[in-house]
Each structure stands twice: as C-alpha cells, then as structure tokens.
C-alpha cells in the first residue's frame, strides 16, 4: 500500500506539474490515519497530502460527474471503481478522453467503521482495474471464487423467509439517502424519490415508502451496479443493500449475458434489447 501511495503522489505531481489535468481525485488523511477522506489535489503542493491505505474504500468515480464536461481529471481507481467509470463512459456522463485513470490493483481493503474486509462481500471480485492509463502496481491474480456466493443463503430461502429478511432490513431505513448519494451511478437530478409530482414515495420512513425507494433504486441500478459496495458502507443503519444489488446484477448477467462496467464500447443492458431475447426471462 505504501508503494501505491508513493506512486500515486509521483503520478499526481507529474500530471499537475505538466497541467495535463486540473485535479487528481485521491484521498487525504481524515481526523486520523484510519479515516481517509476523498480529496481532489489541484496543485503540485497538494500532492504530498495524498494518502492511500487499506481504508481507502470509497469509490471516487462518485465525484467525476461533479466536474464540468471537458475538464481533464485524473482519478485513482480500484477494480470496482474502474468499472463504475466504464458505466459512466457508456452513459456519456464523462468522456474517456477527459480521464486519466490511475489503476490500483488491490484486495483486502477494510471498512474502517466495521472493521470488515470489503471484498468478502462486495467489489465483485474485481481486484484489477478493467481500464486504466497508468497502473500503480502489478496486476493481482484473479480470484477464482464467484462474487455471488454470498447470495446462496438468501436465494435458498423461500419467499416468506426472504420477505421477512427484507422487511426487517428495509424497515430500519431512515432515508438519509447516504446509499444513493454515495453511489457513483446515482446521478439523477432530481432523484425520483425527491419528485413531488408525482410523489412516488412518502417522505416519512415507513416500510412501504422505504420499499418503494429501495426497490425502485435497485431497479435503476439494474445492469449498471458494479458492486463497489459503497451504498452499504455508507449506510448508518447497516442495511446490506449490496445483497439486493448483487442479486439483480447476477440475474442481468444470466438473462442478458453481459457484466456491468467491463467494456466502454458496450451498451448497458437496460437501454438495449435483442430481438432474440427469450420470453422465458419473463417466467
């Protein structure tokens, strides 16, 4: 990690010095070393403040859409982050040419608040960035496990048991929208849930309005979610949203034969169709 941090600072310095980018999206120290904060280095003098350690779990692709189109930015991207960038490129929210992607192969990143290793449940086993301009470390061996194995338990339960599970989880939601706002792909303005005409979901948290919000959000991420897991880490109530997103991702893969965020040239599955899509998917 220290090696990556060093390379990251070097590359940031170079890019800022030559003026080839106006900002480098990375991390700096927060109130202590275990709580890094996303950080946009804009000047060579900022580069030494850049840190990278095992707690830098945040998906920086979240910030890319905040820049004016045409602004050149460099971004430190881990595996899942790079897939989010791919989706943003596919959806024309950012141009590939405006990005300098500093790829970071990594695994074993840790959630500072919970102390858990994040790729045990999320990140879709993407240890290596799928697109990059500069790699900051050697590629890691690809894991040979399925990213969907965490779903086995829930999938094996019956409908009533699953409902019981989600009822408990989703009724705890306080609608702070941290999940949505942490998500690199939730860029709608306004979000459907904030619309008043029509009002899709009541403002007060209740099982019903929470269901409306989350189910619709799961749907909106269908074929797009890259399993970075930021929604679930952002949640103050520890709701395992990633399970649902993963399930939808898995179904999309099986039905449409395409994994989200792998190739900038592909069209996201939900804005596409094939005449030969089978009616069996509706059963």
């Amino acid at each position: 990690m220290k090696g990556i941090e060093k390379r990251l600072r070097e590359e940031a310095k170079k890019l800022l010095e030559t003026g080839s980018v106006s900002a480098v999206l990375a991390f700096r120290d927060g109130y202590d070393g275990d709580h890094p904060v996303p950080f946009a280095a804009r000047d060579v003098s900022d580069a030494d403040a850049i840190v990278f350690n095992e707690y830098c779990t945040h998906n920086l692709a979240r910030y890319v859409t905040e820049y004016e189109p045409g602004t050149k930015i460099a971004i430190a991207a881990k595996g899942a982050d790079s897939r989010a960038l791919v989706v943003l490129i596919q959806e024309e929210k950012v141009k590939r040419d405006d990005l300098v992607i500093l790829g970071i192969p990594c695994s074993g990143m840790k959630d500072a608040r919970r102390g858990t290793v994040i790729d045990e449940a999320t990140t879709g086993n993407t240890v290596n960035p799928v697109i990059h301009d500069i790699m900051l470390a050697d590629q890691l061996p690809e894991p040979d496990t399925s990213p969907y194995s965490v779903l086995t338990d829930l999938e094996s339960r019956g409908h009533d048991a699953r409902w019981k599970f989600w009822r408990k989880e989703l009724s705890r939601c306080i609608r702070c929208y941290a999940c949505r706002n942490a998500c690199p792909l939730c860029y709608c303005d306004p979000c459907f849930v904030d619309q008043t005409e029509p009002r899709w979901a009541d403002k007060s948290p209740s099982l019903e309005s929470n269901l409306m919000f989350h189910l619709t959000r799961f749907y909106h991420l269908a074929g797009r979610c890259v399993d970075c897991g930021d929604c679930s880490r952002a949640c103050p109530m520890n709701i395992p949203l990633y399970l649902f997103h993963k399930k939808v991702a898995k179904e999309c893969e099986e039905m449409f034969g395409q994994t989200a965020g792998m190739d900038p040239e592909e069209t996201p599955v939900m804005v596409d169709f094939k005449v030969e899509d089978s009616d069996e998917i509706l059963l």
Partner: protein
Amino acid sequence: MAFDPTILGIACNWCTYTGADLAGTTRIQYPHNVRVARVMCSSRINPAFIFRAFELGADGVLVGGCHPGDCHYSTGNLYARRRLAVTKKILDFAGIEPGRFKVTWISASEGHIFAETVKAFTEEVRSLGPQTKFAVTKGNDQ
C-alpha cells in the same frame, strides 16, 4: 367467503387493450377481478407502477403488450421485456411470489386469449391468497 383477488391489469393501447375490448364485444366471459389500466405501450410501464400497485394492495399484476415484433412503435415491447423481466426478479427476491406478476403478449385479435389469460391468472393469484407483504397499512387503520 372465498378469497376474491384484486388484480391490476396494465394493457398496451394497440394490442392487449384492444384485445380486451374484443373479448368484451364478443361477450366472452372473464373474471371481474382484473381492473385494466391502459398505457400507450408496454414500454411506458415504469416498474414503480408495479411496486406501487402491490403497495396499494393489489394481489396480482398482469401486464399485456403486443407480441414481440408487432409493437406499434417497433421496439417498445422489446425494451419492456427486459425491464419487466428485471422487475419480476426484484419482486421475487424481495419475497413476492412470481405467480403474482405476469407479463404476456396478447394481440388485438386475441380476445379469447385475453379472457383465458385473465381466467388462469386470477385462479393462480387466488391460490396464492391475499398479498399482505407490500400492502400499506399506514394511517388506514383508523
């Protein structure tokens, strides 16, 4: 008294709705349980409509569109197929039995198929019993 399900039907203007009309004008009997809402195309259906229907107490939702290839807007139903398939998986994973949500293609000339579909779907939903999972209780228990 036997359970009498409430079912929301969403039908596309050009095929299924016209098919339903045909069923009516040719006096084919079908269960009264389905309340049909008309949309211009099955691709106009926002999955949130379906979640909302269940929230408002629907026991089942039946969606009808043109047969693939026959869409009035050429490809609307091909998009809808993907969307509604995902919707179905979401409902399923959340715990709504797959039998409560059905997507089917019925053309304007298939009045009898509309009636048969409604009949079969109503029976299926009836066998599943009332949908109590998503149904709202808020403020309505006064």
